[in-house]
């Protein structure tokens, strides 16, 4: 057995826990999970059946953790997992799965399939099989603190520009303020209007906040890869920054996986609770709304719009209501997609897939489902709260020649407030 295979298998043995054992024990092979997976529904190829994506792990579970499996192994009936098995699994665990978790909503047995897929990724990464694009992103983040490799200097320049534009002072490394704000790489690169938007909103609401030069982004390729040490390293930077600045509330950006990493997985990968709380930016805005600190008239807009729920923030992260409260505040014509909130269809680009070159044709193909969902509603505005979704949606819209504008919710809120103030 080669060392990398051994490491992969040892990792898989380590990550199998009681929930996973109960899922494998219970799976009847009914195949219904396929009906929830965008990669199956849009291609019709049964190889994308969700539970198949963890087959090597199932064999390890059976051989290591069940009496029957051990007996089978003893008499030579067990098929051991080979290096080739793991290599073949990369396509299924990384290159055709966004870890959206929709499969976990429909399994009649109740299996949380994506929970297993995430652990499967850990095993593959330990065996040195993580896609090269994710590995490169992890290296960039470790070196620069940014998934796309933007050092703090880049953000500083943007902060300066935003200060000039808004006339509002924006803090970096200011201790004892209400919030520490983290961004995603996409926000720094493409959607940086968010900085001035938030500066205005927070000023109006009387909220104090800062960036940290130690941790300016929340993106975490360690999570997509299933490399817990890398994930922990990035989380620790944020924890240290918040601790040093004595900040009790940390804001996760409009980025689904960043929210999952910092809000839910972070404390578990570092093995201790945080001394602060984490909120998605949309939760913060909604709280300000509830406190009456977002100065708006109710339902002033009538432009029809819809919302795309990012899997990691909504279905897997539990942020489902705040975005609706905000949208209903701003528009009397907010239309729900058929299948929304926890049952929303994935944009097709999450889980690292839109960075993996090999996956590109598939990402494009499966956008068909989102297109259908949008076209059914007859809207020209799709709002979301994840930079990765936003990118994927923009590409899909362009690819398909759709007359649709994709917007980030924070920006929409900011624009709305601005209009209110002007009028």
């Amino acid at each position, binding site marked *: 057995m080669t060392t990398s295979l051994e490491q992969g298998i040892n990792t898989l043995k380590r990550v*199998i*826990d*009681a*929930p*996973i*054992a*109960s*899922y494998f*024990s*219970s*799976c*009847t*092979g*009914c*195949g*219904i*999970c*396929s*009906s*929830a997976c965008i990669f*199956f529904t849009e291609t*019709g190829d*049964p190889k994308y*059946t969700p*539970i*198949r994506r963890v087959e090597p792990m199932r064999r390890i579970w059976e051989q290591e*953790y*069940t*009496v*029957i499996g051990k007996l089978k192994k003893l008499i030579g009936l067990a098929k051991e997992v080979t290096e080739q098995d793991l290599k073949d699994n990369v396509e299924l665990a990384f290159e055709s799965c966004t870890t959206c978790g929709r499969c*976990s*909503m*429909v*399994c*009649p*047995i*109740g*299996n*949380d399939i994506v*929970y297993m897929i995430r652990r499967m990724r850990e095993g593959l990464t330990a065996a040195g099989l993580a896609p090269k694009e994710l590995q490169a992103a992890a290296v960039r983040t470790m070196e620069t603190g940014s998934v796309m490799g933007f050092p703090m200097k880049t953000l500083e320049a943007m902060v300066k520009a935003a200060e000039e534009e808004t006339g509002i002072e924006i803090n970096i490394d200011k201790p004892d303020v209400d919030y520490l704000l983290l961004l995603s790489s996409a926000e720094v690169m493409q959607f940086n209007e968010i900085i001035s938007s938030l500066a205005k909103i927070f000023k109006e609401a009387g909220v104090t906040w800062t960036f940290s030069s130690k941790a300016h982004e929340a993106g975490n390729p360690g999570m997509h890869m299933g490399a817990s040490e890398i994930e922990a390293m990035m989380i620790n930077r944020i924890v240290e920054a918040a601790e040093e600045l004595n900040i009790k509330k940390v804001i996760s950006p409009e980025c689904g996986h960043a929210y999952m990493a910092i*809000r*839910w*997985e*972070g*404390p*578990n990968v*570092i*093995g*201790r*609770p*945080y001394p602060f*709380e*984490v909120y998605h930016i949309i939760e913060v805005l909604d709280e300000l709304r509830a406190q009456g600190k977002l100065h708006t008239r109710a339902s002033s807009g009538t432009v029809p719009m819809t919302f795309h729920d990012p899997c990691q923030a909504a*279905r*897997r*992260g*539990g942020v*489902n209501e705040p975005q609706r409260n905000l949208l209903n505040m701003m528009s009397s014509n907010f239309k729900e997609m058929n299948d929304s909130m*926890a*049952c929303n269809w994935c944009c097709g680009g999450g889980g690292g897939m839109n960075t993996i070159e090999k996956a590109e044709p598939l990402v494009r193909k499966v956008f068909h489902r989102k297109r259908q969902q949008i076209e059914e509603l007859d809207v020209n505005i799709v709002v979301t709260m994840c930079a990765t979704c936003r990118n994927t949606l923009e590409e899909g819209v362009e690819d398909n020649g759709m007359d649709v504008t994709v917007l980030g919710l924070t920006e929409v809120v900011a624009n709305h407030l601005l209009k209110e103030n002007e009028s």
Partner: protein
Amino acid sequence: MNEVELLNWARGPGLAYATVFMVFGLTLRVLEILSLGRPKEYAKVRSSGVKEGFRTIIRRNLPEKHCWKYITATYIFHVGLFVVIFFFIPHTQLFKDVFGVFWDGWPNYIIDFFTILSIATMMYVLIQRRVNPARRILSRPSDYFVWLVTFLPLVTGYMAFHRIGPDYTLMLAMHILSVELLMVMLPVTKLVHAVTFAMARYYNGSNAGRKGVKV
């Protein structure tokens, strides 16, 4: 051994062995799962997840709305099996004799209806195993065996009750033996889902519940 002796063995020692094996096996399977433990949750949860775990155990008894078309037949045969096992009057009598608990059985024509329904839907499900692409790709040889083990008690039970086949005593013995085979297979095959499904649903529901999501 003649038919009467066979029936007596099946009713007596056979049933006892099968029951002991089943109970021991199922306990072992559950312990196998529990012994692996669950990682400690350090994130600040929105709920303990206990209530949501139990909720999912109940909630998943109804399929997600898009899934009916894949699951209706399976669903019917599960309901059918349940009715036939627990409401056929001789069965209720057996439960009374063994466990001392009694509830009213249902009239035979209802049981007949559910038996035929179960047999028919099980045959459909078997065909689906070959026809439905996702189900087919997941199927292993043991799945067909498991299907047969579940199917036999239904057919033998129906035949015995309606006096079909060579000899009533023999048919009844076959029925009881086929049930014992099912009981023995329960812990060692996928049939274990009859028990572990509750654990799977609990874990899924409670993990999601901690994050404030209902699944």
